[in-house]
């Protein structure tokens, strides 16, 4: 391989590339160019169809989404067709990207048309019926593979040869058994039905064509033909390895995220197809407040603007005030989550910090305790919440029972931890802290490993006591860990949902909205009230709150670091 500048030609120089066309690829390249021309024409047809909407006018959003998609594909195909014909250097990556994407989309569509995704649900049933022969097939294949490995070292050995034959025989017999037991009539029916549909055939042809084109353009011959540089080749290889994760990120994270932003500007209801653009209307609805003076305490909505509900009554500066909101529940949820944050984060972090100092010691049995304290973090939140719900039960719960035992309560007079507004949110705090402090402890333990032992030795020589060592050495040295723990725990606290969903009584968010959280509010808006647009707006408001909170913490951390506070 020779290297000319930044170009790697896998044996040929760029000059050779221009002077001597790769005749082996000549026909394939011409076919590929035609393939892209056909693709461009198909995309042009797609653009026309999207503009006209076919038989029925499309709603504007899918219409413009399709227009954007087909237009981009049209441009990419035209560019690829030109680039491939003209042997430009950028033609290979462009064509590769187009064909790879088309192959993935085509394969996905083909599987859908074959009903493959719904069949996944039947996989368990099918395997259950024919599990034994399936197991035997697997055993047979393992024998074959093992024999292959043995033969690689000793090609003439008789034992591995025999094992391979036995493996193939076993596999063949078991496979027939498996086919009979599994009864693939469903598969045959499905394939038979689907394969005759033009749409399926089209998707299949598209997948095969794009796959072949991808393979062609990925080949070394194509790399030579188009003079792909080393850096470009490395980038393509990297992107290829990244692509599965990238697809997952784009399809299941980035797209929904951006889509929810779009939806938040619409009066978008699950059951209503006429989705009206209302700009910041949803945000205004969520954030609108009204303050009015009142002539009496506990005044009602009559002193507020129309559409506002009473959020709270205040007596301030010798005047009665009524604070109202258009969405009272949202503001209550924000108040609740701030209280929760203030209580839960210290309870989830400080015990972890203290405990990690104990667990970091060399005392016997510490490994066992590390595991024990970590258990709540790996336990399922639903199961844990249900158990805590039973423990908090007013009549048959363990907490009241224990309080009875120590004389802090009377039998049958137990406190309703989850049903009284005064303690419902605090109960959630306890469960949250219990579930998270173990994980935080492990993070702090990791931080402990990075503290130089010399610091402790020097402190001991200087006569520092345990508290001074903890205060002056451990805590400052763990500042980075503390920052990370605080950030992650705070974000989890602000996104509280599952514990409240299971634990609150008599319904999620109860009693009387005492445990209502922003995520619960937006869930209820989205799925109980079907207001997807408003729920999306609430989600973005929450995002801004979390982002702002995190930014402030980052800023503080940076300020401390630059002022020399960070060791």
């Amino acid at each position: 391989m020779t290297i000319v500048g930044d170009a790697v030609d896998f044996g040929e120089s760029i000059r050779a590339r221009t002077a001597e066309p790769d005749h082996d690829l000549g026909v394939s390249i011409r076919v590929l160019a035609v393939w892209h021309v056909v693709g461009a024409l198909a995309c042009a047809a797609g653009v026309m169809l999207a503009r006209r909407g076919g038989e029925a006018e499309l709603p504007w959003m899918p219409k413009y989404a399709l227009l954007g998609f087909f237009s981009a594909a049209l441009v990419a195909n035209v560019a690829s067709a030109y680039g491939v014909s003209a042997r430009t250097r950028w033609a290979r990556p462009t064509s590769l990207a187009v064909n790879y994407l088309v192959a993935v989309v085509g394969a996905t569509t083909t599987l859908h048309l074959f009903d493959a995704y719904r069949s996944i649900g039947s996989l368990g049933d099918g395997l259950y019926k024919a599990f034994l022969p399936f197991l035997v097939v697997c055993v047979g294949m393992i024998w074959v593979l093992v024999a292959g490995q043995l033969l690689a070292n000793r090609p003439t050995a008789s034992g591995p040869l025999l094992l391979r034959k036995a493996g193939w025989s076993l596999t063949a017999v078991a496979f027939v058994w498996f086919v009979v037991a599994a009864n693939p009539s469903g598969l045959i029916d499905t394939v038979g039905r689907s394969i005759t549909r033009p749409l399926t055939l089209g998707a299949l042809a598209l997948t095969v064509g794009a796959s072949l084109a991808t393979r062609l353009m990925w080949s070394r011959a194509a790399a030579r033909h188009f003079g792909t540089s080393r850096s470009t080749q490395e980038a393509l290889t990297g992107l290829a390895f990244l692509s599965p994760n990238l697809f997952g990120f784009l399809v299941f994270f980035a797209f929904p995220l951006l889509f929810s932003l779009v939806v938040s500007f619409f009066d978008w209801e699950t059951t209503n197809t006429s989705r009206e653009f209302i700009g910041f209307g949803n945000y205004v609805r969520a954030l609108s407040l009204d303050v009015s003076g009142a002539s009496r305490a506990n005044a009602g909505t009559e002193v507020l603007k129309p559409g506002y509900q009473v959020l709270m009554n205040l007596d301030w500066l010798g005047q009665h005030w009524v604070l109202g909101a258009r969405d009272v529940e949202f503001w209550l949820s924000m108040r609740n989550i701030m209280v929760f944050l203030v209580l839960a984060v210290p309870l989830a972090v400080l015990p972890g910090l203290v405990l990690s100092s104990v667990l970091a010691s060399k005392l016997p049995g510490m490994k066992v305790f590390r595991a024990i304290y970590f258990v709540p973090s790996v336990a399922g939140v639903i199961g844990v919440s249900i158990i805590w719900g039973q423990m908090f039960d007013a009549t048959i719960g363990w907490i009241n029972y224990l309080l009875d035992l120590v004389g802090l309560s009377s039998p049958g007079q137990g406190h309703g931890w989850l049903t009284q507004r005064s303690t419902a949110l605090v109960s959630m705090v306890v469960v949250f802290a219990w579930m998270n402090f173990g994980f935080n402890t492990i993070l702090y333990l990791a931080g402990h490993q990075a503290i130089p032992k010399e610091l402790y030795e020097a402190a001991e020589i200087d006569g520092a006591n345990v508290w001074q060592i903890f205060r002056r050495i451990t805590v400052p040295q763990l500042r980075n860990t503390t920052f990370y723990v605080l950030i992650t725990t705070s974000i989890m606290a602000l996104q509280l949902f599952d514990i409240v969903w299971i634990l609150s009584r008599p319904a999620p968010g109860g009693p009387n909205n005492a445990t209502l959280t922003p995520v619960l509010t937006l869930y209820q808006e989205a799925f109980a009230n079907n207001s997807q647009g408003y729920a999306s707006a609430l989600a973005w408001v929450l995002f801004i709150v979390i982002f702002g909170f995190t930014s402030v913490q980052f800023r503080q951390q940076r300020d401390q670091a630059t002022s020399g506070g960070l060791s």
Partner: protein
Amino acid sequence: MNKRKLAVLAAVGSLAIAACGGDDDTAESTNVATSGSTAEPSAEATSGEMSSTSADSGAAADAGGDVTVRWRTRPDNDAEAQVYATISDEIDAANGDAVTLAYEPGTTDGANYQDQLVTEAANGTAPDVFWVPGSDIARFQDAGLILDLGPMAEADGFDTSSFYQETMYHLTFDPEAGEPGAKLWGLPRDVSTFALYLNNDLIAEAGADDPRALAEAGEWDWAALVDVATKVADLGGENKGFAMDAWWGPQGYFLNAAGGSFFNADRTECALDTPEAIAGVEEMQTIFSGDIAVPYGESGEAPWKAGTVGMFMNGRWATPGARSDADFNWDVVQLPTGPGGTQGNWLFWGAYVVNAKSEHPEAAWELVQALTTNEIQAEISELGANIPSRQSDAAIEAFLGFNPPANNQAFIDGLQDSPTAEGPLWVGSWPEYSTVMGDGISAVLNGERTLDDYAANICSETAVAFEG
């Protein structure tokens, strides 16, 4: 092809065969059908067969049986889900193979079942036939998620007279006309009423009168309820006399029995502030502030099953759980008569409806009919979880014969004492109304709000449910 590739190919092929081979005889998806002769009009249908009067199912049969009708209910427990799966199989078995029924047990988790359905229905992925509680019929209808079966029922000459008419009032309600009309939103799956589940051992130990004897003697009223509950609570320890769960059903009993109601007569305005309705809340306040009941908001079922509660109010759906978990002498008794002069019981119901986006509406309609025949209802009644929605002697007999509880008649008595039908809110939002109402009552019963404040403001608070 090298061996590794061959091995991978074989494995993938095997999995594909397994995946597609599993469809044929699973419990939830069986070949069933609408084929066969055009039998009797559906009105007379009493078996589980689906008649084949529908055009599309017939066409499907001609085309080789390519129609799958998915259906879903909200069972209260696994046992009930299994019964519905069995029924699905039976309806299938009673018919040909032109249509495939696929039964999907829904979640047992209350409102989430409906929320999930709404989302699915709006996105076109909901089953063809599904069950919704009576209180949610208007919500689904208003959103255009369910099909008006009226034209098909009329074409079939379908007769609804054997169903409880309180349920049919709402199922034929025409929102535009504001009264029942030619609409048909579905057929009721079953009905239920409240009763008090008794811990006879605890009541006897407390020396209280047997509520069943009091009911027999016509002396079972609120005063008697409080008396029995007080005596049981006086046993001390964890024992409580009474328990109920915190939702609109038990709350509504007290309002109804006091002569009040959630709404005015035509269900267009709040009636929670009438003296009768306030009397109902006041009675609850008396019970829950007197340490004779499990604190309001706490689960009542668990302590009752644990044997520490004398009386627990719940519907028929709690019976299977009581049978499996209660290891003491238990029975049921009708609800005590309130100041209004009746039990004030509810007639709970839910209906099978057809998805408005169903590709096979007529096959779905036939399935709805098949699921509500006398035979099928009697079969479900034998499980003991529900009362048939058709007023059939045979089905009632099957229901009464399911013991324990010995006093099944208590549920039937509830049906015959002017129950209030669980009803949707055709003008306004029932979920919103019930949430605000529940919060208000909860605050009063937990001592966080005065009854006077509740009475003065509750209707203005619930007004939001009637807006927009």
